[in-house]
């Protein structure tokens, strides 16, 4: 822990510096690679869409001793031959049976068959029927919510930071999170359910939240940067990111801990369901979001601003100052290199 502390201190002073901005192009290139892969995976792999999107019927049997697939398949096909059941054990005591869309009568038949086959009581069976258009409806609503959220968030951030470039960089980071998370879902075949979508949307909110915290520090560091002769704009940005790294790590860990707890419970005790879907999406997304803020949104901002004339002017001025004072052309370390005798 001591080491973590002193690492944090060094990051704060600039003694240790992770070249978030210095290697901006590298990070963005890597991010771009992930994005492209994430976009390609669904093309070949497709998403494992839950019945909420495809329509169909689903039964969840709990408190059963027997979780074998064949029991369920036989029970279902016996009463409804056309049901095309797929049975997945979701934990030691529960199974999930998905079928094609059944009529209400068939639902009841299957329900009773499952109760008999797995030797459980009526109370232990949960059944879900999703009509064919429901998923489409949900998707449409979600997309609309997403677009509106991104648009409003962009305006709010542009107003708050007083530069649209920060806003743009944050949104770029957001899109990377979105696409990479979707790519992970497609690659791993995690089921996409409305609950996963909830988690996903939360991740977007978390991602922006995280970015705002880091950008706030950058904004503070780069205020009146034009008059600074000690550090270049890009170095100020980089210092800001480094100074918030410890916070980012702590935040991510603290956010991920409860999520991990839910995930653990969901995987080992509860089996598939709302909790698993939400926590899985959050778990994946939170980590991606934290990384994206540091390695995508922030470097992107530095790059966006780097072309501005006054930034270039300032950087040139700093270089000039450094050469005239015999300083190396790198960011100085706070508290150490400012000591009077050293110059």
């Amino acid at each position: 822990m001591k080491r973590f502390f002193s690492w944090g201190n060094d990051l704060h002073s600039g003694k240790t510096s992770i070249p978030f901005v210095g290697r901006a192009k590298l990070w963005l290139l890597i991010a771009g690679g992930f994005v492209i892969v994430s976009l390609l995976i669904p093309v070949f792999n497709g998403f494992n869409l839950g019945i909420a999107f495809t329509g169909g019927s689903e039964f969840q049997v709990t408190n059963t001793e027997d979780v074998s697939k064949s029991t369920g398949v036989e029970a279902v096909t016996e009463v409804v031959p056309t049901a095309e059941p797929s049975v997945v054990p979701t934990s030691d005591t529960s199974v999930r049976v998905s079928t094609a869309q059944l009529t209400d009568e068939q639902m009841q038949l299957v329900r009773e068959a499952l109760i008999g086959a797995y030797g459980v009581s009526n109370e232990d069976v949960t059944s879900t029927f999703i009509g064919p258009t429901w998923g489409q409806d949900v998707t449409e609503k979600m997309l609309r919510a997403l677009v509106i959220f991104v648009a409003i968030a962009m305006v709010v951030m542009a107003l708050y930071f007083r530069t649209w470039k920060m806003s743009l960089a944050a949104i770029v980071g957001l899109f990377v999170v979105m696409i990479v998370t979707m790519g992970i879902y497609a690659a791993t075949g995690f089921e996409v359910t409305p609950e996963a979508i909830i988690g996903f949307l939360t991740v977007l909110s978390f991602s922006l939240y995280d970015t705002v915290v880091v950008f706030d520090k950058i904004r503070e560091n780069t205020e009146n940067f034009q008059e600074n002769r000690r550090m270049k704009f890009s170095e100020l940005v980089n210092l800001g990111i480094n100074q918030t790294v410890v916070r980012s790590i702590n935040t991510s860990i603290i956010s991920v801990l409860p999520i991990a707890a839910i995930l653990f419970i969901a995987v080992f005790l509860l089996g598939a369901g709302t909790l698993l879907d939400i926590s899985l999406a959050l778990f994946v997304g939170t980590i991606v979001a934290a990384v994206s803020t540091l390695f995508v949104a922030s470097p992107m901002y530095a790059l966006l601003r780097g072309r501005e004339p006054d930034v270039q002017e300032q950087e040139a001025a700093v270089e000039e100052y450094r050469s005239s004072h015999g300083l190396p052309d790198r960011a100085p370390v706070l508290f150490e290199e400012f000591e009077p005798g050293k110059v």
Partner: protein
Amino acid sequence: MSAPVNKPRPGLRFTWLGILTAFLVALIAGGTIWSSATWAPKLALDLEGGTSIILEPQVEDAAITQEQLQQAVAIIRQRVDATGVSEAEITTQGNRNIVVNLPGNPDEETRDLVRSSAQLTFRRVAAVSGPEPQSEQEPTQEETPAGPELSEEDQQRLDELLGGGDEAPPAEQPPADGEAPPAGQAPAGDDPAQGGEDAANAGGAVAGPTVPGPAGQNGEQQQEDAEAPAEDGEAPAEDGEAPAEDASETETFPRFDPMTDMSWMTEELITAFAELDCTDPENRTGGDSGPDDEPIVACAQDGSAKFVLGPVELDGSHVTDASFGYEMSSTGTQTNNMAVTLEFDDYGADVFGQITGAITGQQPPYNQFAIVLDGLVLSAPQSQTPVTDGKAQITGDFTQEEAETLANQLKNGALPISFQVQSEQQISPTLGSDYLAMGLLAGGIGLLLVVVYSLIQYRALGLVTVSGLLVVGVLTYLLLLLVSWRYGYRLSLAGVAGIIIGIGMAADSNIVYFERVRDELRSGRKLVSAVEIGWQRARRTIFASKAVNMLAAVILYVLAVGSVRGFAFTLGLTVIVDLLMIVLFVHPMLQVLARTRFFGHGHPMSGMDPRQLGVKPEAYRGALGLDLEKAKEKSAKRGSFKEAKKRQAVAERRSAAQSGTSIAERKAARTAAGSTSTAVLEVDDALDSESVPGNSESGNSAAATDGPSSDVAGAEHGGVRSSGDHEERELSLAERKARRRRGQQQTETGGVDES
């Protein structure tokens, strides 16, 4: 940025927090005693078990309007309430869907009922009676032979048997007729328009807003229509069995005449009618409109009467509009009676004209037609005059509200509403409680992990996080109880997830704040001022980031459907509670703690130990004034801190000018000087900085020359700070550095000191 902070008053913030909590507790305690509040939030179906059906109401060839959606909700509510299912929840969702949540595992019948479609129809009335069953006087079927040859007398007898006649009411049911007007609906026999009518027809009178019929007094509607089929009751050709043919214009209406066509007097129907008990809400569930081409028995929607109705004569799709207003009298003046006006399309006008033409003047109840919605009779007005222009007026003893309701029902019920099941979920109660237990367990474990991590990272300061989270927990719980009580909010599993995640984010606000305080400590500030300055900066960040969170929660809540909303709600709730926590609890707590020896002097376990934060011990001691006593002595000698500040600023300006500083530096110095007067700082903190040993800048200034300037390592920074602690908040890093340089240059130039 923010206005200068006054002397911290943590007590005040704690008080507000206390008041808020006490208020919520008192409110809910009061609620439990005098109202329906509970100490545990109501649970949603996924935690409690039950059936949730999401329906999309559909009307033919058209998008559903808000009004139709409301009508659909009303229809379903009527159906569900009537089945006696308690705690059913019927809500609309996203302008398009209706969510029906039923506790437990409702039977097939109930679920079918919810899904069946509803339509407005017009039928002729064959018999009417009070709502009670006539079981004790079971009409013997032999006495009521079904056949067209039934005489007027027989008819009369039948009416009597059915409890309709006031001459011979069944013993137990004296009020079956005129004397028992249903509340809210038109009273029976006292309707003036009916004065001359046969009082024996109890049903007609009870049947709803009894009507003197469309256009009874309305001049413009009174033109007799020569084409109207013969008024003569015997004339209508169609008999009960035949009307299923397509509604071609050649067909004549009414299709059915109860006077002559005795097909309705079947054994089952009579028995069903006699036994029907419309006082029992279970029989008023609606949902079953019955076969269109056969007679049915039906209850009035309010349970005030029961009817035998003929086949459907006309369906609601021919109603183009319905409105309500004051009845116009025959002289064209407005009366005080409410009336509902119906408008038909061409076909509807034609049919309706024929029907009214045929039934007007017949004896009750044969002159009545029933408006049936979803198998329940909304109204069964008597026809006063044939209506041939497609505009019928229903008058009666309506209140305005009743008239409005009826008009809306007529208007929105015009198209058949069918319900498509979008999703149906039956959740077993055992699974629900499992989920809840597991969700809580997960929350507990998650919280524990957060606590452990906080303690490792922030040592004793982690306890502030932990107690802060407790505050969040308590406030969130109280608010949940409040919304659960006042707004019927139900906590779902997604909601639980929202809370757990929200609490995780609440911990994050603490981290942002603590890290800021640490930053300030690293800069060499003393804890008391580091807390203030750190707060000033962290506050902005926290507010901005929480705003983004809130934005997401609100947008999700407004736009999303289903479980997403429950999630968004608790997420938004925790954002608010989180802000309350950080403002009213964590910050004042730090203010208090900063004054304790344990934290203020940087105990290694306090989490705010400057040594661990990379501030060198000697610098810390110097910069942060562990030699407080000495500083106090000095300050006592030298007078006020403010004075010292001013002098310092003046000295700074001069020295800056002399050493040929850059514009930026001069500006920084100006800023320093200019804002001195608004200095806000802990006095002892200021003293500390004044007494910094070896502070090159202070050394130059007149204010605080103290000790040899040899010990510069790290302390230099503290010295810079001393030039005006408050405005540091507003200075950029650049400026700070500029000033640092000034110090250097002064050293280079030999440290001018003209005081």
